[in-house]
């Protein structure tokens, strides 16, 4: 792997395999920009509720304790017994649920429930007059569980933040947590608790906490600013009070839709940057993930090349080698027959000629399968063009590569395109196809599309899985969009930071 900005970026996160929702793409239409602008405030509102829920869940336990201390009514289980029982009933299943979620099970919705008891407790303790639910005994029982649940809820909120950033801006933020210990034998619940304990001792927990508190503080500061700024501005006027208080607030209210539309994308962008720094994986964790990815792809690459060598050996053995043996035998027999039976000898020589032509043909096919000559001669674009010309459908090839990518990348891209086109011919019933090849930001990008019937699924097709696996060895990705009824569009990206200088120029022949 060549060191360079491309590979450095790749250490942090893989390339997106889908179109991000909010990232400003080049050449976006006016409609797309409008939709993005209108979406942003709603996205922001979601982040606000996430922060509020996580904060409330965190505060549930401490608020109960504080309520107990401030209330000072020594009444065992007396204070709001119904609330106490309600909280207890909510807590137990939520804790089991949370443990299962933290150990890798459950989806997004499961996490939302984690915040529930904390929010309930927070609300109960804040808005009910008098002592805490369940009195002293109740608090001793409830508070630690609520704190634990609050921490789990914090983790859930942080995960949601990471997921949102990936969805909105394309580049994912990888999981910052220590990898779970290998699932050994034992009860699922026991393992879940082990995972929770493991997580409680993880540094990433502190980052999640800091993130939630930081978000809360930012929101609070923002609210305070919004609440007091117009009044404050009013007081800074020349005569102490510039206008009646409702004037600046009314103005602010009228301007707020425009402000929100303008400000929301900026805030979301800032949020994404902050999230990347605070709740992203540490350098150590990134390297660990990288090492794991490399060992996996290396194993696959070794398997693949071993299989290729076996195939070549078999092809040579059954093909050209066998033909050459036949050729030698035919010539040998002809040599002995020349005097006795010239006609038979001539027939044998003709046969030998045929065998040599067949051996040549097989060798040619084999060479094309190992490394196509046009690829060696002209590079990727022309090789793909040559490939397209041999297909029984019309394929438009466009694109240009300033410099030739490294040979290995070029070859991998070629065979990926070849496999994709073979799929098109086999399954798509397409009449037209198109291929675009380009090199931007240290990435070789190729799009292969057809107007066939669609419905290609990488999860089902072993061909597409094979392409993905082979591209993975180069940190490349394949994304396939293939709705039923078509069109099918497959795009692949392979990082290639430092292309080798072009060795042959096709300008003389173009």
């Amino acid at each position, binding site marked *: 792997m060549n060191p360079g900005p491309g590979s450095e970026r790749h250490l942090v996160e893989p390339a997106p395999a889908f179109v991000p929702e909010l990232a400003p793409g080049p050449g976006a239409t006016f409609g797309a920009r409008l939709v993005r602008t209108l979406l942003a405030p709603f996205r922001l509102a979601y982040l606000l509720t996430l922060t509020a829920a996580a904060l409330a869940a965190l505060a549930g336990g401490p608020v109960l304790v504080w309520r107990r201390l401030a209330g000072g009514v020594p009444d065992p289980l007396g204070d709001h017994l119904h609330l106490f029982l309600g909280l207890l009933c909510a807590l137990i299943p939520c804790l089991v649920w949370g443990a299962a979620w933290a150990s890798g099970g459950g989806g997004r919705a499961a996490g939302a429930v984690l915040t529930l008891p904390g929010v309930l407790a927070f609300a109960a303790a804040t808005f009910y007059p008098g002592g805490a639910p369940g009195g002293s005994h109740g608090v001793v029982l409830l508070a630690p569980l609520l704190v634990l649940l609050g921490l789990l809820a914090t983790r859930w909120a942080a995960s949601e933040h990471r997921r949102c950033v990936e969805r909105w801006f394309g580049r994912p933020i990888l999981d910052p947590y220590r990898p779970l210990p290998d699932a050994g034998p034992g009860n699922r619940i026991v393992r879940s608790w082990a995972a929770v304990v493991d997580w409680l001792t993880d540094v990433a927990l502190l980052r999640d906490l800091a993130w939630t508190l930081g978000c809360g503080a930012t929101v609070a500061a923002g609210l305070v600013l919004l609440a007091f700024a117009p009044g404050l501005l009013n007081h800074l006027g020349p005569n102490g009070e510039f206008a009646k208080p409702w004037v600046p607030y009314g103005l602010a209210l009228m301007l707020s839709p425009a402000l929100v539309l303008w400000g929301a994308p900026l805030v979301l962008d800032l949020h994404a940057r902050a999230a990347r720094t605070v709740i992203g994986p540490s350098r150590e964790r990134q390297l660990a993930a990288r090492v794991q990815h490399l060992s996996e792809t290396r194993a696959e690459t070794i398997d693949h090349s071993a299989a290729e060598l076996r195939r070549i050996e078999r092809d040579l053995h059954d093909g050209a080698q066998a033909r050459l043996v036949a050729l030698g035998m035919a010539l040998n027999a002809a040599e002995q027959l020349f005097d006795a039976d010239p006609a038979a000898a001539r027939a044998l020589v003709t046969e030998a*000629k045929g065998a040599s032509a067949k051996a040549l043909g097989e060798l040619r096919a084999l060479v094309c399968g190992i490394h196509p000559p*046009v690829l060696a*001669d002209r590079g990727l674009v022309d090789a793909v063009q040559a490939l397209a*010309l*041999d*297909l029984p459908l019309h394929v438009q090839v466009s694109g240009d590569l300033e410099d030739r990518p490294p040979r290995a990348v070029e070859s991998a891209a070629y065979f990926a395109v070849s496999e994709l086109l073979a799929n098109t011919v086999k399954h798509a019933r397409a*009449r037209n196809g198109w291929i675009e090849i380009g090199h931007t930001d240290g990435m070789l990008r190729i799009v292969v599309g057809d107007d066939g019937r669609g419905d290609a699924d990488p999860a089902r097709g072993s061909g597409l899985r094979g392409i993905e696996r082979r591209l993975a060895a180069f940190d490349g990705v394949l994304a396939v969009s293939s709705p039923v009824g078509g069109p099918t569009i497959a795009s692949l990206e392979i990082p290639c930071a430092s292309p080798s200088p072009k060795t042959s120029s096709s300008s003389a*022949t173009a």
Partner: protein
Amino acid sequence: MRVAIAEDLFLLRDGLTRLLQAHGMEVTAAVENGEELLAALRADRPDVAVVDVRLPPGFTDEGLRAALTARQELPGLPVLVLSQYVEQLYARELLADGSGGVGYLLKDRVLDGSQFVDAVRRVAAGGTAMDPEVIGRLLTHNAAAGPVASLTPREREVLALMAEGRSNAAIAQQLVITERAVAKHTASIFVRLDLQPSDDDNRRVLAVLAYLNG
């Protein structure tokens, strides 16, 4: 007839020279790379150049590029390109100027001496000699839809041989039919493909190739 040869493998260069000499041709130059070929062509223009695609120093498509350069410098110079493999892409580039006098054959075809010499003569006379494999792939590319799909099997055979650059007489001999029958088939093919009929063999072939390369 005077021939220049560019081929980097000594055995093949020598074999080609002998083969052509045995058929009464004069080999004006037998060189091993594109530069030398161009120099030889400029110094002493032969009737036809036989060039290997892959030549030193890069062993990529130097031979093809030398052939194309030679045709630009010496317009109308007939060139027969030989290769270990055939690509439609290269065939297109050779045919692009539309002037004929072009051949593109697999090296295997040298095995059949008389057929090969026939191809060299055809190219030297301004005709074309396309490898059956190129034509086969061209037909596959066109076979899925369109007029080519509507041809009868016999007409397709005739079309393939015509695209290779064979004359009516040669097609008749190959398919063991009369020349009149071949003429009937070609007329029908031209109607189906909506091409202007032409009495001139070479122009006829170029029209067919241009159509198939569409």
